[in-house]
Structures are given as structure tokens and as C-alpha cells.
């Protein structure tokens, strides 16, 4: 239980996927200019991360035991096809949910946070529950970083940020400041 809490807090705050591991930077910079989009993308990513954790655990436990060299290829293929399948299922079962999250799902499969999650969970030898909690923490951390960044960028539209800094430069500097602020969480619940 202690361990699960730490895995969650570590992925959520201390070693935030975006701000400390640099995973999922593509959507973090690309899709974080609107708050509403950021929230939805975050939720959809969390959902995909949970599926990924399940898939990679199944693959590692039952399929790849004697063929570790196929890990990378099978992760990519399985994750991409599972997400596509889930996308179709959601479209059929819940059009509302699909409207909220669906358009992001294919975009997410190419996100390095997803593959990164599977690889980290494998390298650390996480079991099923640990993997799921890790995915939940990583997804929550990703959403948090995305939402904070979206808020900052929406606010910046009203400010007169110098032209020299605008665009990616200021986003990177803001991410650096956020990353600096997240250093305050170091050591949280580690004792």
C-alpha cells in the first residue's frame, strides 16, 4: 500500500512525466494553448495510459517472456491497435464520451508518454496493480502539467509579452519555471 502510494505520488508530482521526464512534450507544447482542450486531452491520455499499462503487462507476462527483443515492436503495434479498437468501441457505445475524448485518441498513440510509460513500467518490473497505479499517476501528472500550462498560455494572450519571446521560447521558459516549482515536491512520502 505504501509502495502504491509512492508510485502514484512519484509519477504525479515528484517525477512528473512532463516536467521531470520530458515525456509527452509534443502535446504539452502543441495542444496546451486552450484550457478546455488541455483538460480533455489529459483525460483521454490518462485513459490510454491505463490501457497501455494493462497491455504491456499482459505482453510482458504472457507473450514476451522468451522474446524480449520483440518488446519495442510489439508494444507499438499492440498499443496502437488497441487504442484504435477502443476508439471504435467508444464511438459505438457512448457518442457523448466519443465527442469529448475521441478525436484525441489517435493523436495520443503517437505520444511518447504512452510508449515511455510502457517502457518505464517494464524496466522497473512493475506488476499489474503497480503498473495501473503508475499509469494513473502519470496520467494525472500529465493532465496537471497540461492544465497549468494552458492556463498560463491563455493568460499570456492578454499580456504584452515581448515579440522576441513569444511562441515556443516563452512556453519553454514557463515549463522550466514550472519544473523548478515542482522540485519542491522532491522526497514527498518517501519516508
Amino acid at each position, binding site marked *: 500500500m505504501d509502495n502504491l502510494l509512492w508510485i502514484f505520488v512519484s509519477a504525479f508530482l515528484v517525477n512528473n512525466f512532463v516536467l521531470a521526464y520530458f515525456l509527452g512534450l509534443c502535446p504539452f507544447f502543441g495542444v496546451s494553448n486552450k*484550457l*478546455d482542450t488541455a483538460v480533455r486531452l489529459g483525460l483521454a491520455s490518462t485513459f490510454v495510459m491505463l490501457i497501455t499499462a494493462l497491455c504491456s503487462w499482459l505482453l510482458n507476462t504472457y507473450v514476451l517472456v522468451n522474446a524480449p527483443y520483440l518488446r519495442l515492436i510489439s508494444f507499438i503495434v499492440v498499443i496502437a491497435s488497441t487504442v484504435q479498437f477502443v476508439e471504435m468501441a467508444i464511438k459505438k457505445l457512448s457518442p457523448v464520451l466519443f465527442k469529448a475524448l475521441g478525436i484525441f485518441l489517435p493523436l495520443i498513440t503517437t505520444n511518447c508518454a504512452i510508449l515511455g510509460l510502457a517502457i518505464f513500467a517494464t524496466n522497473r518490473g512493475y506488476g499489474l496493480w503497480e503498473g495501473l497505479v503508475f499509469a494513473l499517476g502519470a496520467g494525472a501528472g500529465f493532465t496537471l502539467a497540461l492544465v497549468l500550462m494552458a492556463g498560463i498560455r491563455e493568460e499570456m494572450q492578454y499580456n504584452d*509579452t515581448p515579440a522576441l519571446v513569444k511562441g515556443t521560447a516563452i512556453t519553454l521558459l514557463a515549463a522550466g519555471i514550472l519544473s523548478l*516549482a515542482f522540485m519542491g515536491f522532491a*522526497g514527498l512520502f518517501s519516508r
Partner: protein
Amino acid sequence: MEKQKQKLIVQAAPYLSHGITAPKAMLDIIYALIPVALLSVWFFGISSLWVIISATLGGVLVEWLFNRERADNPLKDGSAILTGLLLGLTLPAGLPLWMAFLGGVVAIGLGKTVWGGLGNNLFNPALLGRAFLLGNFPIAMTTWPAPIGDAGIFSVYPSTFTWPFMQVATDSVSGATPLNLMKFQHQFTDVGSLFIGNVSGSYGETSALLLLVIGGVLILRRSIDWRIPAALLGSVFVLSLIFFMVDSRLYPNPFFMLFSGGLMFAAVFMATDPVTSPLTPKGAWIFGIGMGAITVLIRLFGGLPEGVMYAVLLMNATVPLIDKISQPRAFGHGLKKDGQ
């Protein structure tokens, strides 16, 4: 100048109906910091003055460099001096002067200039400079010299004049701060000496009594919004009281939590910065309570002894969100606005 003034009023209009203009509030706060600085010279000697001046010079230099061609030179509004003062007062006595100078440069450069100057920055510049220094130089920034005692006001810590970019040569004697003692040795400093301030720590964080008095005066003069310190201190008190009642041997006394570390200083001077705090009264409460919760979280369960600086920076990052949820009428109808 004219433009700067206007911007602040526009941003602050929803609640600051009592006519606060930037220079007046800023001057008030600079005056309020003078007794704190004097007290720190009394406790830590002339070194502290050097550090404060060094940090201020760093900030003023950047402000001047990047704005010398502008007609409305923001140097005149004194905000760079205020940031430098605030930063200097949160640094340990005996910090090498080059580090203090670098802190001032980062505070103004990264905290203000790149965002487009005063009124546009989202993070508290002084604390940003301090977070940068703490991350870069964790040992120098946590070497808290003990108050000078009998050595006399004009004695200087040997580490103060360290060569730029070089390490502190001598092993200075580090007095553990009360929060360090609490976290790593489970010793609780008695609340009385915390209140007066004769303990190790950064200049600004030593005397809770003085800070309370100054905070009171500033609130009465309406230079700062009373809600933010109230929410911050109140939530820290309530939360730590709950933990204290659960296990009084493991968790410190709530008064200890209030009077130790940089909490008082942050509550009066850092959290109340009108540019980086929410616009509405409701937002101010959320902002303060959020800071209190993060402070207690980091102090009691985190790896670092003090968390109030990170709490302010993290809540600064949420201010756009807080403004959004606490001001529904000004921004249309919430989320629907952005729907496809």
C-alpha cells in the same frame, strides 16, 4: 510609466476599490521592508546588508539593460529595487555575494523582463530567483549561519566574499534552522524564541513578531489584501492543528508551524504581490488556502524542510485558472466558451 500604472489598475480593479496605485503600494512595501532589513543587520551583522545590496544590484542591472531604450523606463517605478530587497531578505546571511547577484539577475530577467515587464509576469520574481538559487546551490543556500552574537555588527562571514563562480572555501558553521531540527532531528524549537526571532534562518524569516506588526500596518494602510495572509496563515494553522491532534509527538505544534521558516514573510510580502495573485476576493481565499495546504504538505511529508516558497510559485501557476473559476461573469460561461 503612465502605461504601467494603468495596467495595474485594470488588473486590480475588481476588488481594489481603495485607489491603490503601483508606486504608492510599492513604496509602502519598500518602507515596510526597511525595519526587517535593519533587524537582520542587528542579528547577522553587516554581511546581510551586502547580500541585500548585491541582489538588488543584479535586478536593477537587468532592468536597466533591457529597458534602456524604452521611454517609460520601468526602473523609475522601483519594482526592481523591491524585488531585489525581497530576494535579498530571503537569502541566508553569509551567502556569497556573486550568488545573490545572480539571483537578482534571474529574478528580474526570467521573472519579469521576458514576460513583458511589470504587470505581465505570472510568477513572483523574487521567489523565482530564490528557487533558482536553491536549486543551483543547495549547500550554500541551506548553510544558515547562527546569529553573530558578540562578534559585533561589523563582522563579516568569511563566505560572503567568495570569488565569483567558485565554491565557498571555508566550512562555515551552519546553525540548523528550527524547521531543519523539526524534520531531521525531531526537536521542536520553543515558540517564544521563534516569535522574537533570535534563531538561524534567512534574514526576513527570523522575527515573527516584527513581521506580524508590519503586516498589520500594511493591511491597515490597504497596501496589501488582507485575505491572502489570512487564508494562508489560517489554513496552515488549521491543517497543522489537525495533524497535531492526531499525533502530537510526530507532528509539530501549530504555533511552531506559523512562526517558523519563511511563512510569515511570505504571507505578508510574497503571496500578496498584486500582479501574481488572483483578482477576486473569492480567488484570494482559494489562492491562500492552496498555498497553506502545499506548505503543510511539503513541510510534514516532503523531503525539504521548508515549502512555502514552492507553495507560492505553484499557486502563482494556478492563478489564471483561479481567475477563471472565480470570475464566471467576466469570462462568459465557463467551459462552453471553448467548445467546438
